[in-house]
C-alpha cells in the first residue's frame, strides 16, 4: 500500500504521454481509396464561407458526369469556414483532396507552412487556377438614402461602413484592397500604369499616402468588425447597423435574393478589384489516397461550360466567354484591377498590409491613442 502511489504517478504520466504520441502518429496512417470502375470514392473539398451553395450543386453535377464517364461512384464532402482557418486546418492535417479558398495567399500558406503541394500550384490550372471570379461591391439600404454611388461617397459625413475584420476574413482583405486600389487610381488621375513607371515614383508615393488615409478613414467609420463575410451581411441586414456594406458581389446578389429586394439594393462602383478565388489539388493527400486523377477531373470540371454555368448561377463571374454572354445582365460592367498589378501579388500585399504591425494595425494604433 505504501509503495503503490509512488509508482502510479509516473506510470500514469507515462501512459498519457504514450497515448498522446500514438494519437499523433495515428493521423498519418493511410486510408487508400479504390480507383477501379464500379468502386466508390470520396473526395474532401475544403472551401471558404460563401461557396456552400455553389459546391453543393457542382458536386451533384460532377458526380453524375463522372459516373456516366467511368462507372465509378463519387461522393464529395464539403467543409466550409473562414478561408484562413480552413487553410490552417489543412496545414494541421485535415485530409483535403482539393482546396477551393478565398485568396491565393491562403493556398500559398498551405504550400509554405504545410508543404502539402508544389510551389507551382497556381499554374496547374488555367486563369491563375481561378475558374470563377468575383469583385467587391456595395450593398445599401433600399432607395439608397445616403446617395452612395462610388468609393469617394463612402467618406461623406455621417456614413457608417460595415466590413469584416481583415485579420480573420478573406473577403475583408479583398474589401480593403479594393478601397485602396480605387483611391490610388483616383489620386493617379485614372492611370494605374504609373505604378510601373520609375519616373512617376514621387507621384505614386503621394498617391499611396492618399490611399492609406482613405482606408484609415474608412475603418474609422466601421462600428463593427465581424469575423467573417456572412456575419457582416447579417449585421448590416438583420441588425440594421451602418449605411453601406462592402462585400463580395456573389454575397450581395445572394443577400438580395434571400432577403428580398425590398430591404437592400446593390451599388456597383466604377472600379473595383478582380477577386480570383483559387483552387488546387493537395498533392500529399491525393498521392496517399490515390485520388489524384479524380481530384484533377473535379477541378477541371469547374472550367467546363456546365461547371461555369453553375458558378454563374451562384453569382460568381464565369471565365468562359459564352457563359459570360449568357449571364451578361446579371453582372454589371466595371473596371477591374488585379492584386498583382496594384499590390505586386498576395504575399507582398499581405506583408505590407495585414501582417502584425502592418498598415491595418497602424490604423488602429493611431485610433487608440
Amino acid at each position, binding site marked *: 500500500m505504501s509503495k503503490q502511489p509512488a509508482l502510479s504517478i509516473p506510470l500514469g504520466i507515462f501512459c498519457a504521454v504514450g497515448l498522446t504520441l500514438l494519437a499523433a502518429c495515428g493521423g498519418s496512417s493511410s486510408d487508400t481509396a479504390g480507383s477501379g470502375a464500379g468502386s466508390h470514392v470520396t473526395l474532401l473539398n475544403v472551401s471558404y464561407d460563401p461557396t456552400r451553395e455553389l459546391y453543393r450543386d457542382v458536386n451533384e453535377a460532377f458526380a453524375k458526369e463522372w459516373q456516366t464517364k467511368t462507372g465509378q461512384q463519387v461522393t464529395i464532402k464539403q467543409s466550409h469556414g473562414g478561408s484562413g482557418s480552413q487553410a490552417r486546418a489543412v496545414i494541421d492535417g485535415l485530409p483535403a483532396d482539393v482546396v477551393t479558398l478565398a485568396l491565393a495567399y491562403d493556398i500559398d500558406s498551405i504550400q509554405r507552412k504545410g508543404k502539402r503541394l508544389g510551389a507551382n500550384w497556381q499554374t496547374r490550372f488555367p486563369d491563375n487556377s481561378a475558374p470563377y471570379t468575383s469583385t467587391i461591391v456595395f450593398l445599401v439600404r433600399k432607395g439608397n438614402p445616403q446617395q452612395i454611388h462610388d468609393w469617394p461617397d463612402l467618406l461623406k459625413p455621417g456614413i457608417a461602413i460595415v466590413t469584416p475584420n481583415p485579420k480573420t476574413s478573406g473577403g475583408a482583405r479583398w474589401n480593403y484592397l479594393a478601397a485602396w486600389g480605387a483611391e490610388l487610381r483616383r489620386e493617379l488621375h485614372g492611370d494605374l500604369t504609373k505604378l510601373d513607371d520609375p519616373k512617376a515614383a514621387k507621384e505614386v508615393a503621394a498617391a499611396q499616402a492618399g490611399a492609406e488615409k482613405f482606408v484609415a478613414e474608412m475603418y474609422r467609420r466601421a462600428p463593427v468588425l465581424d469575423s467573417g463575410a456572412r456575419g457582416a451581411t447579417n449585421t448590416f441586414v438583420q*441588425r440594421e447597423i451602418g449605411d453601406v456594406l462592402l462585400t463580395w458581389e456573389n454575397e450581395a446578389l445572394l443577400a438580395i435574393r434571400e432577403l428580398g429586394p425590398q430591404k437592400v439594393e446593390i451599388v456597383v462602383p466604377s472600379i473595383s478589384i478582380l477577386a480570383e478565388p483559387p483552387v488546387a489539388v493537395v498533392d500529399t493527400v491525393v498521392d496517399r489516397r490515390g485520388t489524384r486523377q479524380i481530384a484533377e477531373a473535379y477541378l477541371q470540371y469547374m472550367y467546363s461550360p456546365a461547371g461555369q454555368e453553375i458558378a454563374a448561377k451562384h453569382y460568381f463571374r464565369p471565365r468562359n466567354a459564352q457563359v459570360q454572354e449568357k449571364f451578361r445582365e446579371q453582372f454589371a460592367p466595371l473596371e477591374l484591377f488585379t492584386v498583382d498589378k496594384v499590390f505586386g501579388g498576395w504575399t507582398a500585399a499581405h506583408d505590407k498590409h495585414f501582417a502584425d504591425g502592418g498598415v491595418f494595425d497602424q490604423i488602429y494604433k493611431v485610433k487608440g491613442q
Partner: protein
Amino acid sequence: MNGTIRTPSVLPGFGLTLGFSTFFLSAIVLIPLAALVTKTATMGWDDLVRTLLDPRAVASYRLSFGASLLAATLNGVFGFIIAWTLTRYEFPGRKLIDALIDMPFALPTAVSGIALTAVFAENGWIGQYLAVYGIKVAYTWIGVVVALTLIGLPFVVRSVQPALMEVQRDLEDAAETLGANRITIFRRIILPTVAPAMATGFTMAFARAVGEYGSVIFIAGNLPMKTEITPLLIVIKLEQFDYAGAAALGFAMLVLSFVLLFSINLLQAWGRRHHVAAGR
C-alpha cells in the same frame, strides 16, 4: 470497532485510483498545458515581451478580465437572489424557472451570442428602448459584460442553492427568539453558511467568463483597442499562422487567471479564519 486507530476506506484501491487520476489529469490537462508552454518558449524574450505588452493586447486583457470580474460580481448578487427565491419560496412555475437556470450551460455559446445581439442591437426588443436614452449595449463593452453574465449565471445559482438549503431554519428561529434582528440573522447565520459556496460560484463564473469566445464575438463588435477580447486576439494570431504568439497570449491568460483565482482562494481562507476568530 476492533481497536485499530486507522480506519481503511470501505473501497480499496488507493494506488489504482491515484494512478487513474494522474493518468487522466496528464492526458487532459497537463500535457496540453505543457505544449502551450513549449510553444511559447519557441519565441525569444524580446518577441515575447513585445507580444504580451503590445498596447492592443493590454487593452484586450483589460476588457477580458475587467468584464469578467464585473459579470461575476453581477452574478454573485443576482445569482444569490435567484437561488434564495428558488430555495425559500414555493410558487407556481418554480420548477420551470429552476430548469431555465441551466439553459446557458446547454446552449451553444454562438446561439446565446446571436440571441443577445438580436435583442440588444439598436433595432432589437430591448435595444430600441435603451437607444432612446442613448445607451448602446450591442457592439460596446457593455455587450461583452451582458454576454459574460449570461453564461456565468448558472455557476453561482447552482453552487449557492445547496448551501442555502443547508442553512438550519431552527437556528434562524432561535436567533430571532434571542432578539436578533433580520440583518443580524442574515449576517451571522445565513451568510457564514453560504459564503464559501458564493465564493466558489463567483470563481467559476469568473473563470468561465475569461475563457469565453463564442457568445462574445457576436455582440462585442470586435474593434481593436475597444471591444476586442483576448481570446479573439488569440484567434487572430492563429489566422496569421503566428502559433507562438497565440500560445504566448494563451499563456499570459493562464498566468493572470491563476494569480486571480489563487488570490480569491487565499482571500476566502483568510475570511474563514477571520470569521471564526470574530465569532468566538
